[in-house]
């Protein structure tokens, strides 16, 4: 065992020597148009953090409006220009804000930022590959995403404003430029940006899938893969099969908007004038959208399933409980996620029988989800828990996932959904189970793999403060929303003070807004910690968490090609923590059984 440790720590501070075997790369090849998966991962991470702050900032603006509907916000005038008149937010701008907040968070942060970062960074490192199957396509994937980002970002600054029809862009609202100003140029840019985004996702996705299939190192069978890899693999498959359907919907919508077709339009009067469109169906768009949309929520959450499993096992110093059940439940969730989309459409006039079929399928998802939760808890149970920042995020993830998942079971009942649909109850549900949980998973991953990414540690004290503030504000923001949601408080309303029923919630709404501002401010601590640690953080060792997976067998700053010498061979699964009889409480995957006689089990190799 100790022999591996020595080889692990050998090249600690000589990372630059690595480039000897490569031709000299100039600045552009190395940092901008890089084909190295680690650099591309960081590019996605930086882009994701950038978008995260934009998306968060937009939500603070609309939370101000919701929390203090009667107030005037003259101090925002320098930033918002014509969107704010005499301190009053333009109602259509409010709609644009929620639309862009949703789009940015779901797609640009929690899809591209999350999968883009961790799939890129961890797949080659953890399966023992020098790089992705195609470095070039990987680079292309980032740059197409970058282009999509530029288009989306530009749309924030155009005169008629960005898209305003909600992140789900339902027609006819989104299809008719004359409907609201947000359905004009802003919507066109939204569609262009999303089409590019989908192309980027597909380029990335085929790469992740083929890399996992073809580039695993010797001995790395599918059942020795860390759960992270399984989760990224399934995420990529979900994306590959569902994003094309959104592409179809987007293309059809583009035609309806720009070329006079009637795919989603029929019998519409606007400003007292009848439109020529006939024969189309707006509901059809919803079906296409949610065929992507529901798998999409799992595209967001699956990677964090993997990250959290890995971090919980490592920091409980225990094998993950139910490794195969974890894989099985992820497979089950992935499969089911394709057949439940209509639970978003219970109140569209759907046949009640069909509704009950979708209700049944939806509620089945609770089973594999519960299996995962039980396994995480069982892994924690009587573990030697080390509360690193990453670990706290992982545990909090489980908490948020439970809280948000429970309300999913309520919403999944088609009869209850009649009351709850389009209220703040839904907002609370998905912000806990997807929004907050995925963000926590992402933070968990960043704190955990930061040493491998940048060769330095993040500050634990700042991490601790960041964690508690974020955790508290997440619950303080979303818990009260359940309450007002059950009372029928509708989502996407600019102003609710005109309704007597909702006036009693003024205090609660201000409270939520204050908590949201607190939570947003706490992210500045993270930003500071992140940037500061890149340059000034404590230097990391090669395997600071005493982890088993292969990425920790590389030098502190792995060069292009990841391992200076030969790629390690894999002998065991990644969760040999605290194995009875072993001298240390971890045995990395590349240690052969011949070196661990003292801890080998008699039936060791039959278990593989």
């Amino acid at each position: 065992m100790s022999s591996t440790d020595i080889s692990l720590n050998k090249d600690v501070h000589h990372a630059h020597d690595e480039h000897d075997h490569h031709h000299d790369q100039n600045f552009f090849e190395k940092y901008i148009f890089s084909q190295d998966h680690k650099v591309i991962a960081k590019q996605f991470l930086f882009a994701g953090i950038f978008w995260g702050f934009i998306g968060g900032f937009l939500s603070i603006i609309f939370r101000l409006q919701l929390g203090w509907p009667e107030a005037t916000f003259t101090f925002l005038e320098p930033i918002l220009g014509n969107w704010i008149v005499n301190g009053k937010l333009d109602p259509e701008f409010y709609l644009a804000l929620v639309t862009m907040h949703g789009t940015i968070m779901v797609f640009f942060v929690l899809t591209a930022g999350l999968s883009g970062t961790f799939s890129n960074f961890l797949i080659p490192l953890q399966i023992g590959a020098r790089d992705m199957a195609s470095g070039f396509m990987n680079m292309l994937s980032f740059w197409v995403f970058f282009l999509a980002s530029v288009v989306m970002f530009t749309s924030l600054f155009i005169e008629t404003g960005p898209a305003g029809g909600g992140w789900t862009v339902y027609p006819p609202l989104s299809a008719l430029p004359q409907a609201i100003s947000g359905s004009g140029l802003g919507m066109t840019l939204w569609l262009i940006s999303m089409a590019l985004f989908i192309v980027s996702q597909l380029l990335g996705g085929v790469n992740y899938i083929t890399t996992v299939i073809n580039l695993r190192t010797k001995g790395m069978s599918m059942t020795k893969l860390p759960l992270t890899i399984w989760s990224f693999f399934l995420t990529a498959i979900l994306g590959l099969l569902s994003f094309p359907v959104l592409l179809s919907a987007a293309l059809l919508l583009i035609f309806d908007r720009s070329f006079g077709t009637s795919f989603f339009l029929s019998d519409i009067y606007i400003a007292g004038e009848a439109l020529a469109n006939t024969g189309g169906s707006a509901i059809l768009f919803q079906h296409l959208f949610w065929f992507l949309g529901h798998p999409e929520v799992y595209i967001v959450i699956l990677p964090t399933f993997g990250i959290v499993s890995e971090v919980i096992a490592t920091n409980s110093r225990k094998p993950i409980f139910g490794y195969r059940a974890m894989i099985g439940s992820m497979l089950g969730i992935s499969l089911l996620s394709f057949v439940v989309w209509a639970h978003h459409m219970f109140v569209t006039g759907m046949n009640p029988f069909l509704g009950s079929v979708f209700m049944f399928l939806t509620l089945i998802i609770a089973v594999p989800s519960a299996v995962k939760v039980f396994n995480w808890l069982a892994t924690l149970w009587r573990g030697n828990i080390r509360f690193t920042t990453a670990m706290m995020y992982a545990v909090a993830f489980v908490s948020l996932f439970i809280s948000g998942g429970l309300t999913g079971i309520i919403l999944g009942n088609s009869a209850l959904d009649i009351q709850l649909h389009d209220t703040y109850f839904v907002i609370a549900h998905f912000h806990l189970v997807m929004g907050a949980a995925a963000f926590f998973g992402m933070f968990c991953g960043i704190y955990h793999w930061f040493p491998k990414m940048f060769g330095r540690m993040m500050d634990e004290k700042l991490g601790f403060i960041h964690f508690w503030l974020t955790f508290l504000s997440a619950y303080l923001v979303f818990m009260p929303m359940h309450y007002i949601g059950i009372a029928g408080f509708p989502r996407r309303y600019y102003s609710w003070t005109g309704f007597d029923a909702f006036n009693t919630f003024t205090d609660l709404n201000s409270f939520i807004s204050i908590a949201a501002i607190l939570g947003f401010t706490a992210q500045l601590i993270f930003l500071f910690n992140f940037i500061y640690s890149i340059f000034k953080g404590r230097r990391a060792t090669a395997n600071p968490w005493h982890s088993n997976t292969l990425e920790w067998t590389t030098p502190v700053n792995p060069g292009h090609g990841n391992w200076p010498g030969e790629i390690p061979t894999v002998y065991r699964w990644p969760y040999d923590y605290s194995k009875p009889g072993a001298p240390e409480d971890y045995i990395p995957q590349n240690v052969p059984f011949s070196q661990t006689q003292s801890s080998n089990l008699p039936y060791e190799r039959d278990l593989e």
Partner: protein
Amino acid sequence: MSTSTTLEEPKTGTWDGGNEPLKASYGKLMMWFFLLSDAFTFGAFLIVYGLSRHSHLPYTGRPEDFQFSTEWWPIPEKVFNAFPGFHGVDLPLAFVALMTMILILSSVTMVLAVEAGHRMDKNDVQKWLLWTILFGGTFLGCQAWEWTHFITGTDEGMLMADGTRVFGANMVMNQYGPPLFANLFFFITGFHGFHVTVGWILLVIAFISTVNGVYHKRGHYEMVEKIGLYWHFVDLVWVFVFTFFYLI
């Protein structure tokens, strides 16, 4: 477990890593997965077609009395019955059958090109690629004619309630039936045609590279194989498009 050599060695089964478990290079796998996702794009369009059509009334009268009308979905044989050079003759589906034949032929020649690649026979690859390019180009030409005819329309057009006549088709209106009929025709055959065009350009590039001996120097004709996969896929999609638009 018994001897130390088995402890020293990792397992070496099909899925135990260090190999290509599906016996396909990463490039080919990528093409397969791309095609899988593209199949979902087309699948979505065809479902839109099916549902849109289902929400329109079918024509219920006798076929001989069929008239174009926005009230019902037209009978395909009555729409696609023209043939270049046979103006005014009723040849239901003859032209599209010919187009389909040509496209299928191009798939056959593509198979032969890939097979020649396996044999590293540069001349044969060249020959069969050229045939494929020829057939593919002819298909695109046929489609251009078909579209032109569809857009200009027939001599009679469609009689409207106010006594005027509508000729041909555009995105807003068409002489054959409800607007969606032409919308879907343009969109789906157009999207397919776009795929064929892309494939055709790839074929031309592959042909030029073959002539220049690029693949021969590389030692394998895998690029031809990958383009072949794409080409067969596009053909297969056509079979579905053909069935949906022309047969049902």
